[in-house]
């Protein structure tokens, strides 16, 4: 609890820093809220005064009413203006802070170590940047102004009521807590029902997910009737518990309205009695009734706002945790800029693990001479990407060092290191934009000829030309206009354009048709000519042609050597080779 508390206070403090940019708007908003509430409360008094000037035939003070009307008019205009300014300030402040927080969060993501990002699903991070920010903006900022106006309203009402007639005010003060009590009571009682409802609803959603998500299987086994029966059973249960939850929770409103009516009646009687004894005028009673009508509303709002605030603070804490995460260590000031890389890579006594308890690479040594091909093989999940992570410096080694042309890569600028590699991953990633923009990603200054030449060398030019808009075809996230293989060809073209001295390639396992696969193979071969290449290999030919084969299993390199050497060892590779790659005989 105390930990949660400090989390919230920390989040509040962080929020204050963002608010500081908008201190003027904040002050203006609070001031306007104060003015508008005060005047809104003052208006019933004026109305009451006017009513007191309307007594009976012949006893109506028109001049007086006119005076009051003028005052009222001024108050109304000022209040309206104040409300408007307050709304505008709140909008600017809220959306401004949302923009700032989102921008900072996104910019931070660009600088976070991959270790952090890999620890979450992309959905989780997206929901922080989008949903959490939205919710905290709504909850925190709206809630904040609402809380402020509610409190001012309550205090102001109390003050005015006490000033007009303390006795009648006391009646209001005594009855009000009943409303809060009733609301709290109902909320407590319905909590359980809501829980049952949300569990049952979860069960139904799960069932729907399963049955409709896999409808094809359901149909293949003619299970429609059976699944319908189960559905009905859950649906009936949900209907019953939903009815309870919805009905009992909807009691809150009428119940508080009932209490409100009690307050109203109480004021009516007490006021009338006071009026009979001359302690109060009819106009003042009117004012009181006006107050009684709106007095309980802020109480209800406050209880709602407080849950919302708690929720919003939790969201804020999450998003600030992201923004405040330690970024990757920046490049040293004297970091070397790699130029004219030959492609010698030395891995010296490298140890690495994602989590300390689970050792992965231990004391790995490997010397790669310029132009060599390194094939990385092993069963799925053996940790082939770990090596890519280290070479590209997505992760830093725990012990030992990796050197490129003799430079420890930790003393080299990240950009020049990554420029030295061309990377084609199996999960093809293309950015929303045209095909041209995607190919030119690494070299935005490339000419049209260079782009087309790269596409031609990657065997992508012919299919791009056949697309309706050619190089201007726009690719969307998850768009189906390109096949997986075509996307891969584009990724190859993207690297082809950059002429990197070294390569990291991830061969596709399946799901690409044979002909495209042959093309990709050709493109890969062309790309690899004269370049140091690290290939996550699945194809027999690639493996056999490699200068060095690294056999990985359970995250570690267990064997290393060329094809013949490894076969002679009769170890893991030997088995792998005979079970997986030569299974056709």
């Amino acid at each position, binding site marked *: 609890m105390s930990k949660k508390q400090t989390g919230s206070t920390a989040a509040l403090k962080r929020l204050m820093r963002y608010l500081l940019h908008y201190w003027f708007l904040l002050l203006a908003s609070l001031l306007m809220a104060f003015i508008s509430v005060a005047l809104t409360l003052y208006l019933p008094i004026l*109305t009451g005064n006017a009513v007191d000037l*309307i*007594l009976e035939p012949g006893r*109506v003070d028109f001049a007086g009413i006119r005076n*009051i*009307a003028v005052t*009222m*008019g001024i108050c*109304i205009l000022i209040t*309206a203006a104040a409300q408007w300014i307050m*709304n505008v300030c709140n909008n600017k402040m809220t*959306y*401004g802070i949302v923009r700032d927080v989102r*921008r900072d969060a996104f910019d931070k*993501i*660009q*600088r976070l170590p*991959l270790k952090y*990002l890999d620890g979450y699903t*992309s959905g989780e991070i*997206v929901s922080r940047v*989008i949903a959490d920010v939205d919710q905290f903006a709504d909850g925190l900022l709206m809630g904040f102004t609402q809380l402020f106006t509610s409190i001012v309203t309550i205090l102001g009402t109390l003050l005015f009521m006490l000033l007009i007639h303390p006795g009648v005010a006391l009646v209001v003060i005594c009855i009000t807590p009943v409303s809060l009590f009733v609301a709290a009571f109902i909320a407590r009682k319905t909590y359980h029902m809501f829980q049952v409802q949300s569990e049952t609803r979860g069960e*139904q959603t799960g069932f*729907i997910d*399963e049955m*409709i*998500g*896999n*409808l*094809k*299987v359901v149909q*293949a*086994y003619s299970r*429609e009737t059976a*699944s319908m029966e189960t559905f009905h059973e859950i649906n009936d249960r*949900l*209907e019953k518990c*939903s009815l309870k939850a*919805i*009905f009992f929770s909807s*009691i809150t409103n*009428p119940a508080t309205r*009932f209490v409100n*009516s009690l307050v*109203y009646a109480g004021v*009516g009687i007490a006021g*009338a009695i006071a009026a009979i004894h001359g302690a109060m005028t009819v106009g003042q*009673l*009117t004012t009181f009734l*006006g107050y009684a009508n709106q007095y309980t509303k802020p109480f209800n709002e406050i209880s709602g706002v407080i849950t919302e605030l708690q929720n919003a603070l939790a969201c804020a804490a999450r998003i600030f945790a992201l923004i405040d995460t330690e970024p990757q260590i920046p490049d040293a000031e004297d970091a070397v800029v790699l130029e004219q890389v030959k492609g010698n890579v030395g891995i010296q006594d490298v140890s690495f693990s994602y989590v300390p308890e689970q050792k992965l690479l231990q004391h790995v040594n490997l010397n790669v001479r310029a132009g060599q091909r390194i094939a990385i093989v092993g069963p799925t999940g053996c940790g082939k990407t770990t090596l890519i992570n280290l070479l*590209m410096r*997505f992760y830093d080694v725990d012990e030992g060092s990796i050197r490129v042309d003799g430079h420890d890569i930790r003393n080299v600028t990240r*950009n020049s290191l*990554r420029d030295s590699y061309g990377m084609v991953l199996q999960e093809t990633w293309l950015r929303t934009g045209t095909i041209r923009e995607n190919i030119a*990603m690494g070299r935005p200054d490339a000419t049209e000829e260079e782009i087309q030449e790269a596409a031609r060398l990657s065997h992508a030019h012919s299919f791009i030309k056949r697309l309706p808009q050619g190089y201007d075809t726009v690719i969307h996230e998850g768009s189906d206009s390109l096949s997986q293989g075509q996307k891969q060809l584009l990724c190859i073209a993207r690297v082809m354009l950059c002429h990197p001295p070294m390569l990291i390639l991830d061969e596709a396992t399946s799901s690409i*048709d*044979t*002909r495209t696969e042959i093309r990709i193979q050709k493109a890969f071969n062309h790309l690899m000519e004269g370049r140091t290449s690290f290939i996550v290999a699945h194809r027999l030919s690639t493996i056999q042609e490699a200068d060095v084969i690294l056999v990985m299993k359970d995250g570690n390199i267990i064997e290393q050597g060329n094809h013949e050497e490894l076969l002679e060892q009769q170890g893991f590779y030997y088995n792998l080779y005979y*079970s997986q790659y030569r299974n*056709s005989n």
Partner: protein
Amino acid sequence: MRKLLVYLKDYKKESILAPLFKMLEASFELFVPLVMAAIMNQGIQQKDLPFIWKMAGILLLLAVVGLSCSLTAQYFAAKAAVGFAAKLKAALFSHIQRFSFSEIDEAGTATLITRMTSDMNQVQNGVNMVLRLFLRSPFIVLGAMVMAFIVDWKGALVFVVAIPLLSIVVFGIMLITIPRFRKVQEGLDRVLGITRENITGVRVIRAFHQEEEEEKRFHISNEDLTRLQLIVGRISAVMNPVTFIIVNAAVIALLFIGGEQVDTGHLTQGEVVALVNYMNQILVELVKLANLIITITKAVACGNRIQAVFEMEVSQEFSETEAEENRKDEIIVAFEDVSFAYRNAGDEALSHINLQVKRGDTIGIIGGTGSGKSTLVHLLPRFYDVTKGRIRIDGVDIMEYPKDQLRNKIGIVMQKAVLFKGTIRENLLWGNENATEEQLQRALRIAQGLEVVERKEGGLDARITQGGKNLSGGQRQRLTIARALVREPEILILDDSTSALDYATDARFRKALSELAPKPTIFLVSQRTASIQNADRIVVLDDGEVAGIGTHEELLEHCEVYQEIYHSQNQKEVQRA
């Protein structure tokens, strides 16, 4: 949305009573200012204490009656809304169940799930709100005006002017903002899209050090979103102040007119107060109404989406009468000049397929992705209907079989190994509800699934979590194969379904399969020549057309496409040979 309302018809009573009681409650609320006026006029001016107490009693009574009316209304509304949603859900679920694969593809399962869940909740919420509030708010607004007329027609004229003015402001602003809110949503979607894209592509982005470029892209969309939000905000910001001015201006007008009427003896002081109170009531209700309309707009949009699913017609019809099959025929499956195009696709996925399959044969089907392999086998259980030609099974056109008779002949193992929440046994029984323990064991043995079951605590009764997440891909695949075998089908279709099995297991499975007696007719779909080269006959597909049919040896000799596939997968072997 309108067509969905038929599901309310079992709740006619509730749907009428709920708003009715709500209106009753509202009417009682409308009496309150009149009672207060009476207190002021009679009670205070004539110092009539017993009268005041009597009126206080009436106020209390009104409150109690109002509360009970309101509770009744809430109950009926909740009952109707929940019942409606339950009926609608059941109807939609059953409708979706009847969809053929074409409709499933067209709508997409993710969309269908959203329709069944979150859209449904919105609609339920909307119906509930409408029943409770939609009549109440206009009723109070108009009721207040009527009451004003009862009190004094001259004063009521202020209402006649103020109410339309207020309505114009409130609904006008809503009309202007709702489409702009949609724009804001689109802006938000763009920001979301960029964020997601950025995170999924983080490695590539860093490899090409595109971080700053990405930031620029994000900032543009982010600023754009803020701008859109501010525009909407600026318009909405006008609502409160303007309504405030109108209502209070009306109050001032009431004071003047009231003063005049009192002066001439047409009105009492208490009645002026009553008029002012009615005016204030209107403001509260209009704000509620505006919020309500937003909820309704959302619910209607969701309802329309649900209705669109209902309007998707089920494109397939199945015969009702059992077909007279001939299980003795040597030819079990015959494709007769079959062509097929997916709905909304321009080109045919399969063209002019002719194929006769002998009972008990194993048919290998090979070709690149998109060549039509899966499509071909999906035509057999009528997951999709041929667009031209016909298919016969056991001598009967498959269009003449009832659904269950046709599908019970076939056991299909799909590419994606899907299991369902429940025990392993329950999952296997999907193949055949009446399968004996022995049959289950036999199916598991062939599918190499016995060790999977043995390793799980509880054996056959071990729980499988949703989506089979507590099993590995290979384990899932073996169980889905077993599920198909439990059916002991005439025709077994294996659609690239041993990809997660290691070589040794795959080999054992294929051996066990070939020793089955009686041997089913097997369709074996694969990308790899190694998996199918022992088949009795191999069908080579290329771009939806048959490029060759024959045994492995025959095809290696004559079929160019097959040679290409084979060599690309076995380069070294050929060079060595």
